[in-house]
C-alpha cells in the first residue's frame, strides 16, 4: 500500500475513535483503539466524522460538487480551545516542560494566592504573612533577557508595591480588568481594594466587610460586580460601587457546603462555582440563578478549582484528589479526563488548581506528591513531559498568564517562583 493511504487509514480510525468517545462510548473507543494499536488519548472527542459523513452524503445527492472543497478550510493559529471546530489542531504554544525558572521571590510566610493582570505585565502574590506584593513581570523578563543572574539586587528589584492592610492570611487576589486596582480577600473577613497607581500605597482605598473568611472571588469582566465565595455555602454578589450584597432569589440554588472557587466567563453571561460538597454549579450572570449542577463532579471529592475557557463553552475543574476534568456546557457532560497524576487517589487539602496555558493548548497541574508540573494536551488529554518545580513544600496556587508563556507557582515553602518560556 502507498504510504499516504496508510496515513489516511490511520486518520479514519482516529476519527472513528473520536466519534465513539464523543458519543459517550468510552469503553468501545478504548477497545477499538487497543485493537488498532492506537492510544485513546491521541484522539480528542469530536463529532468531525459525523459532519464529514453528512458532507459526503450531500455530495452523493448532488454529484456536481467539485472535488477537494474541504481543502479550503484554512486552519489558522489556534486562539482557544474549541473542540467543535478545532479538535485536531496541533498545539503551537511552547510545551509547558520547556518553561524555565526566571525568578524566585520569598515571603515571610507561605504564599497562598497569585494573579496576573489582563495584559500579563503585572502579577500579585498574596501570602499568609498578611502582605501582598505586586511584581513587574516585564522587569523580570527584561532582566532575564539581559542575562543578569537572579539576585536580589536593590535597583532591579521587580517588586513595585507591597501592600499591608490585612490582619490575617490573604487567600485570594485579582486585578481589576480596567483600572489600576488590586482586589484582595483574606481570612480576616474583609475584601480590600488597593489603588496601586499611587507609588506609596500601603492601605486600601475601600473595603467590604464579610461575616466569614473569604476563600475566593471573581470580578465581573466589566469591573462593576464581584462574586464572592466565603467559608459558607452561600455565594454572594457584591456591587462594588454601592457595596450592596445580593444572593440568588431561590434558596435551593446554593451549595450545601462552603464554596471554594468561583469564576466568571469572559462574556459575563455565566458563573461557575465549585464547593467542598463536591458539586460544580453554573450560574446565570444576569439573574444570578443556578442554571446547572454537576453533582459530585469528581466522585464526591471536594472541588479545588473551576475555570472557564475563553469562549465560555467549557469548564475545567480540579478535585482535591488532583483529578482534572473538562466539561462541555452545551451537552452538560465530562468530555476529557486528564489522568495520570502520581498524587491521584489521595485526597489532599493542599492540592493546587489546574490551569490552561495562554492559548489553551495545554492543561497544567502542579502535582504535590512528586513536586512536578503535570501537563496534558488540552484537546486529546495526552500527557506531556514533567517539569520539576523544585519547591520544598506543596504548591498552593498556580496561575498562568493570559497573554504569554509564563506562569507562577505559589508554595507553602514561602517562595513564589516565576517561570517563563525563553525565546
Amino acid at each position: 500500500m502507498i504510504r499516504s493511504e496508510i496515513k489516511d487509514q490511520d486518520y479514519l480510525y482516529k476519527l472513528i475513535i473520536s466519534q465513539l468517545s464523543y458519543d459517550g462510548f468510552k469503553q468501545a473507543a478504548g477497545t477499538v483503539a487497543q485493537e488498532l494499536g492506537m492510544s485513546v488519548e491521541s484522539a480528542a472527542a469530536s463529532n468531525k466524522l459525523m459532519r464529514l459523513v453528512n458532507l459526503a452524503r450531500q455530495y452523493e445527492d448532488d454529484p456536481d460538487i467539485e472535488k477537494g472543497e474541504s481543502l479550503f478550510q484554512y486552519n489558522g493559529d489556534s486562539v482557544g480551545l474549541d473542540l467543535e471546530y478545532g479538535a485536531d489542531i496541533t498545539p503551537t504554544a511552547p510545551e509547558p516542560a520547556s518553561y524555565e525558572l526566571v525568578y524566585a521571590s520569598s515571603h515571610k510566610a507561605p504564599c497562598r494566592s497569585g494573579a496576573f493582570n489582563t495584559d500579563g505585565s503585572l502579577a500579585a502574590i498574596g501570602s499568609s504573612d498578611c502582605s501582598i506584593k505586586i511584581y513587574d513581570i516585564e522587569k523580570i523578563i527584561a532582566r532575564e533577557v539581559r542575562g543578569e543572574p537572579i539576585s536580589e539586587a536593590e535597583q532591579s528589584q521587580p517588586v513595585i508595591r507591597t501592600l499591608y492592610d490585612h490582619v490575617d492570611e490573604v487567600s485570594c487576589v485579582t486585578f481589576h480588568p480596567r483600572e489600576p486596582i488590586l482586589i484582595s480577600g483574606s481570612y480576616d473577613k474583609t475584601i480590600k481594594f488597593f489603588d496601586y497607581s499611587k507609588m506609596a500605597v500601603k492601605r486600601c482605598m475601600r473595603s467590604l466587610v464579610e461575616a466569614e473568611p473569604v476563600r475566593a472571588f471573581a470580578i465581573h469582566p466589566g469591573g462593576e460586580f464581584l462574586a464572592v465565595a466565603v467559608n459558607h455555602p452561600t455565594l454572594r454578589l457584591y456591587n462594588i460601587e454601592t457595596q450592596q450584597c445580593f444572593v440568588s432569589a431561590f434558596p435551593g440554588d446554593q451549595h450545601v457546603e462552603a464554596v471554594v472557587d468561583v469564576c466568571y466567563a469572559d462574556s459575563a453571561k455565566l458563573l461557575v462555582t465549585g464547593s467542598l460538597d463536591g458539586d460544580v454549579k453554573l450560574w446565570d450572570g444576569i439573574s444570578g440563578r443556578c442554571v446547572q449542577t454537576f453533582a459530585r463532579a469528581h466522585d464526591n471529592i471536594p472541588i479545588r478549582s473551576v475555570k472557564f475557557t475563553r469562549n465560555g463553552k467549557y469548564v475545567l475543574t480540579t478535585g482535591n484528589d488532583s483529578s482534572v476534568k473538562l466539561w462541555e456546557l452545551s451537552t452538560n457532560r465530562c468530555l476529557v479526563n486528564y489522568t495520570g497524576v502520581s498524587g491521584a487517589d489521595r485526597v489532599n487539602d493542599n492540592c493546587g488548581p489546574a490551569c490552561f496555558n495562554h492559548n489553551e493548548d495545554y492543561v497544567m497541574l502542579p502535582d504535590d506528591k512528586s513536586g512536578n508540573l503535570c501537563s496534558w494536551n488540552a484537546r486529546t488529554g495526552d500527557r506531556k513531559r514533567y517539569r520539576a518545580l523544585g519547591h520544598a513544600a506543596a504548591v498552593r496556587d498556580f496561575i498562568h498568564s493570559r497573554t504569554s508563556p509564563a506562569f507562577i507557582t505559589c508554595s507553602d515553602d514561602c517562595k513564589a517562583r516565576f517561570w517563563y518560556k525563553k525565546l
Partner: protein
Amino acid sequence: MSNASVISPERRIEFNAFDVDAWNLLLRESSARPIDTARIFYEKLVTQFPNAGRYWKAYIEHELRAKNYDKAEALFERCIFQVLHIDLWKSYLHYLKLSKGHIISMREKVADAFELAIDRVGHDIQAAQIYQDYIQFLTDVEAQGQYAENQKVSAIRKVYLRAVATPMLNIETIWQAYCDFEKVSLHVLPSADNDVRNDQHFSLFLNRIAQICSYNCKELCILLVFQSVNINLAEKLVADRVKDYQHVKKVLKQMELLMQGINRQAISVPPRGTQAEQKQIDLWRKLIVFEKSNPLRSDEVGLKAKRVIYTYDQALLSLGYHADIWYESAVYHEKIVAELRERGDMKTAETIERETSKLYSRATSGLMRNTPLIHFAHADFEESKGRYDIATKIYDDLIESNDDPTLAYIMLMNFIRRIKGVRAARKVFERARGDKRSKFHIYIAGAMMEFHCIKDSNIAQKIFDYGLKKYGNVPEFATAYIDFLYHVNDENNTRGVIERLLESPDISNELKIEMWDRYLDLETQVGDAASLRKVDHARRQALNEAYDDRQALFLVDRFKFLNLWPCSEDQMKLMGYNKISRLSSTTGGPTTSTQGHFMSQGLLRTTQQVNLEISGFPRPDTNQMLAFKPASRATPSTHPVSGGVFPAPRSVSFMLQRLPPPDSFCGPFVDHNILMDALKNFTREPPKANYKASVDVNDSIGKYKVADLKREFQQLVTTTTDPAVLYASEEYRKQRKRRHGAAGGPNDSDSEDENTNGTAAEATGDVFKRLMNAKVKAKEQMQT
C-alpha cells in the same frame, strides 16, 4: 440557557457600533448559516471594519465553502491591496494554488501572485509559509531541457536568497532547505546560471582546468571534475551567506522580543484612552523605531524603507483610528522620497511617492473619513506636488461630507488664494456664504483676507458689518470685529459698534461683560481722561449685577495689561476675581481669545471621548436577586438564604454609614421611664413643622429666645468633630485598639476611662449597657 436574559448582540451593536465582541458573536452565528443569508451581515461587517483582515478572511472563506469562486475572487480583489494582513494573503495564495495551480496556462499567473505577495507582505515575521509555498510551487514545475532547468534553479535560488535575508519565524527550516538545495542544484551544470558563472573563483577555476587539459577534452574534463567539485562549491556558496544569515537571525530575536505583547489580531476601533490601548501604541512605536534604525544594515534605502512602511501598515491595521500614526507614516514616506532623490534613485522614489498618495486616499476614504486633519494633510501634500486639481477635489469632498464645513471652506479659501490669487478666493467666500451650514468664522476669514491681501479696510469692514447683522449675538464674532476696528485705528467706529451692541436688547450677559471690558481697554489706551472716566462709570453702573458690587474688581480691570496684573494672583483669587484663570490660559493677546475658546472646546471634546468607557458586558440584574447582608452564623435571621440577614433599605444604610460610631456618643442620656410616661400622657395634637414660615430672630419660643437657640445650635455643630475626620485620626485608631485589647481584662479599664468605672461592656462603648450599669450601681448605693 442564559441567552434569554442577555442583551442580544444586535442590540449591543446598535448601542455601540464598535462592540467587537458582539460582532464576533454574530460572526460565529453567521458562519454556520448558508452564505446567501449571511452575505448581508458580512457586508455590514466589512463596511464597519474595512481594514480588519480577519473579517475579510472569514467572509471569503465562507464564500469559498459555498463554492462561489467568482464572488470570492471579487472579494479578494476588493480587499487584498487595501489590507496587508498576512493571514488574508496566505489564504489568497492558498486559494490560488488550489484552484489554479494545476492548470498549466494559469501557472504564470500564480507565480505572479506569489511575487506580488512577497513584494507586499514578504517582510512579515510570519511570512515563512509564503516563501516555502512559493519554493515548493517552483520546484513542482516540470522543466524541459537544460535551459529551462537552469532557469528554474536560478528562480528558486532567488527566492531562497530573499527568504534567508528576511527575519521571520522558522527561518532555520528555510536555511536548512537552502543549504540542501545548493548541494543538489549544482549537480546540474550551471552554465546558464549567472550567479555561479559570475563567481570569480569559479571562473578562475575553470580557466585553470582549461589550461591543464588540452582544449579537446575540456568539456569532458569539466564534467568529470565537477562531480567532486560541486560539493565544495555548494559549501562555498553557502559559507558566503552564513554571516548574513547569522545577522538576520539576531535581528529576528530582537524583533520577537519587540513584538511580544503586540496584539496583531486587534481590530481597529476608535480610541478609548484605556491603558491597554496606550500600551499597544507604545509597543508599535517601539517596533517602528527599531525598524527605522535599519537593523538589517541594508545599504539599499528602498529595502529599509519598505520594511518601515510595512511596519506602519501593520500598525495601522489595528490602530486605524489614530490619526497621528497615519500622518507619521506619510511623513516617513516623504522623508524617504527625499533621501532616494538625493541618491539618484528616481524610480523607487516615484513609486514611493505614488504610495504616499495612495496611503492618504486609503486613510481619507477609510477610517479617517471623519478626521479633517488627515484630509488637510493630504491636500497639503498634493499641493506641494503641484497637483492642484486633486487638492481642490479633496477640499470639495470634505466640504460635501461634513456637517460643519466652515473650517474646510476657510482652508480651501487660503489654498485657492495661494494658487490662483484673491479674486478666485473671493468666489469661494461667496460660495461659503451661500452655504447654510457654515458659521460666522467664514466672515472673519473673508474680511481678514480682504484686509491683509488687498489692504482694503473698507471692503473688510463691509463684510464685517454684513456679518454683524447675522451673528451680532456671537461674542467671538463681535470681539473679532472690534479687534479689527481697533487695529485699523478706527476708534470712532469701534466706539460706535460697541455702543450699538451694548444697546441692542437681545445681547447675552457674557457678551455684555466682554464688550464693556473691551470698551474700557480701548479708552484706557487711546481715550482722554474724560471719556475714560465716563466709560468706567457707565461700566460700573451696567455691570454692578454681574460683579456683585465689588468695586475693587473694576479697578483691577482698569489697570491690567494683557497678562500683567496689578496685584498677585492669590490676592485676586481672594478678591473673587475669576477672569484670571480664563485669561491666563490663553496667554494674553486679544486676538488669541477666539482661538483659545476653540482650543478649550476641542480639549473638552477629546477629554469627553477619553472618559467614554464602553463596557458592553451584560450586567447582573439585581432586581431578580435577594438583597443580603452577611452575618455571623449565630445571628438569628428570617432570611431564606442562610448566612445572612436582610440589609437595611438603601437610604437607611447610607445614613448608617455616615453616622459616627456608637462609642463616640457620650450623652445626653434620656431617662426612658420618664420619657415613656410623658409619651403615654401626651394627648395633644402632634406639632407640625412649617418650613416656609420664617422665624423672626427676636421672637421667643416658650421661654427661650430664638436668637439664643440659633446660636447654641450653631455652636454645637461647630464644636462637634466631623465623624470622617474622627475615624481617620491616628488617635482614634489607637483608642480603638486599646479598647479592643482591654475588652478581655476588665480591671484595666478604670485607668482608661475615668468617667465610667466599670466592666468590659463599658469599654466596648455600648451606651445602653453603660446606662444600665449606672442604674444598677445607683440602686446598690441606695441599698447600702
